[in-house]
């Protein structure tokens, strides 16, 4: 592998890892704070990707602005959908055991897949890369790297930075962390825990959907795309330590690199590399890299 190929693979791994983190961070927060195992989290990613595909024509004809308007409208819509989903379904799960949580959230996967099938159909669709970002950056005389992928990485880095800022520096972040450790005390300090949960859930939904939206032009949209992401996100959450946001970031980047380089270095065993990494890490640290609280 020459230096340019190595660099390209690094950029790919970084971009994939960051996208994984956007999805996995919501999964780990929802589990760590509300104690809910959300199997439908992959569907949130799928919903985002299909929004990028299905909203585009309507937004282009009414608002204009292309892909960026789609992102913005999609983001607002996902916050609303997340908020409503929490109110209608997830708020009933907090005091229930894991079996009931798994049953309901699995049921939601089926509902979302069926709705997708009814509304958009079962074909694979491509989503256009916005024109300004359609170019490539030359890396050597023969190799180039697509601008859109760099844009995705930059956007993800900005989001990750914003998220860590909110989490570590703001009162909302303090409340969220406190809520993960002692719910009753948080309430006794005058904080409406149900509202806090709803905000966290809506944010988790929006992050996953946003990841789906920005990934859509690279990966295209297809049935079952949410389930692939869900499985790999559970790997990330388990490696990182359940409930730990820092852990999720480290694990997502690690999986990004292992997966990307696994495909290049040992193409025959590419499918198992990620799980091998998980097994090794769990043997070394059974609770994951960062054990929360």
């Amino acid at each position: 592998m020459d230096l340019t190929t190595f660099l390209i693979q690094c950029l790919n791994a970084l971009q994939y890892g960051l996208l994984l983190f956007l999805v996995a961070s919501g999964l780990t927060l929802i589990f760590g704070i509300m104690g809910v195992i959300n199997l439908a989290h992959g569907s949130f990613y799928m919903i985002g990707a299909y929004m990028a595909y299905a909203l585009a024509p309507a937004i282009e004809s009414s608002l204009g602005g292309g892909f960026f308007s789609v992102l913005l409208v999609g983001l607002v819509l996902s916050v609303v959908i997340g908020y409503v989903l929490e109110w209608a379904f997830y708020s009933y799960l907090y005091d229930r055991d894991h079996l009931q949580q798994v049953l309901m959230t699995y049921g939601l996967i089926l509902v979302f897949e069926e709705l997708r099938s009814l509304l958009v159909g079962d074909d694979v669709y491509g989503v256009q890369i916005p024109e300004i970002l359609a170019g490539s950056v030359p890396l050597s005389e023969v190799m180039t790297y697509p601008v859109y992928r760099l844009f995705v990485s930059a956007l993800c880095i900005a989001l990750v930075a914003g998220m860590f800022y909110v989490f570590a520096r703001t009162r909302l972040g303090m409340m969220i962390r406190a809520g993960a450790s002692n719910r009753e005390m948080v309430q006794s300090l005058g904080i409406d825990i149900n509202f806090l949960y709803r905000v966290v859930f809506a944010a988790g939904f929006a992050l996953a959907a946003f990841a789906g939206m920005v990934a859509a032009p690279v990966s295209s949209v297809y049935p079952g795309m949410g389930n692939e992401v869900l499985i790999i996100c559970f790997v990330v959450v388990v490696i990182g330590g359940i409930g730990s946001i820092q852990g999720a970031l480290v694990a997502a980047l690690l999986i990004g690199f292992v997966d990307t380089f696994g495909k290049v270095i040992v193409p025959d065993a590419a499918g198992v590399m990620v799980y091998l990494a998980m097994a090794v890490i769990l043997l070394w640290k059974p609770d994951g890299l960062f054990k929360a609280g």
Partner: protein
Amino acid sequence: MATQSEYLLEAEGIHAWYGSSHVLHGIDLRIARGQTVGLLGRNGMGKSTLIRTLLGHVTQRDGHIAFFGRDCSRSKPHQVARMGVAYVPEGRGVFPNLTVRENLLMSARPGTDGRADWTYERVLDRFPRLTERLTNLGNQLSGGEQQMLSIGRALMTHPDLIILDEATEGLAPLIVTEIWNVIADIRESGIATLIVDRDFRRVLAHSDHALVLQKGLSELAGPAADVANDPSLTGLLGV
């Protein structure tokens, strides 16, 4: 806050259940503004349950609860807290994964009357030991430091009533005395308190009124001095 009631808290006929077990059997409790009330009784007689019921944490409950004359019988815990009630729970309730600074700032807010005199600086002034530990996590503190943090955090919400459940439990004698000094200061500053503590003599010495629970009923109640001299007191407390 402009209301008619002279009482900060009026609770009448409080019943509470944990599942099928009936823990409180109709307790009356009144706290006037600025008053200190001691809550006594042996283990398992319902003291903590009464507190958790008043705060809205026990949902299987019955009876009438009002703060400042406003009905809170069915209020949620955060609504009760927002009425001006702060809680220093048994076990202190310090967030282990937040720093001392974050524990204090997280829930700080002005009082119901706009009071904001318990600033971050004033709390650190009152509890100088916390100043050295601002960046430590809650679970890295000693028991006494955690207790001071819990009380400091309560003060920063500018409450009209502070409920202290077993505030001196498991602390060294010197720290216990320091905590009682703090309680005396709080009383002096005009904030009402409801105190539960194992040391009934000190509770009675620091209280205006007292209430002794037995098997979920209020067996003895009145001015602290009368309760202290009541012949049935030692029997009720099993001492």
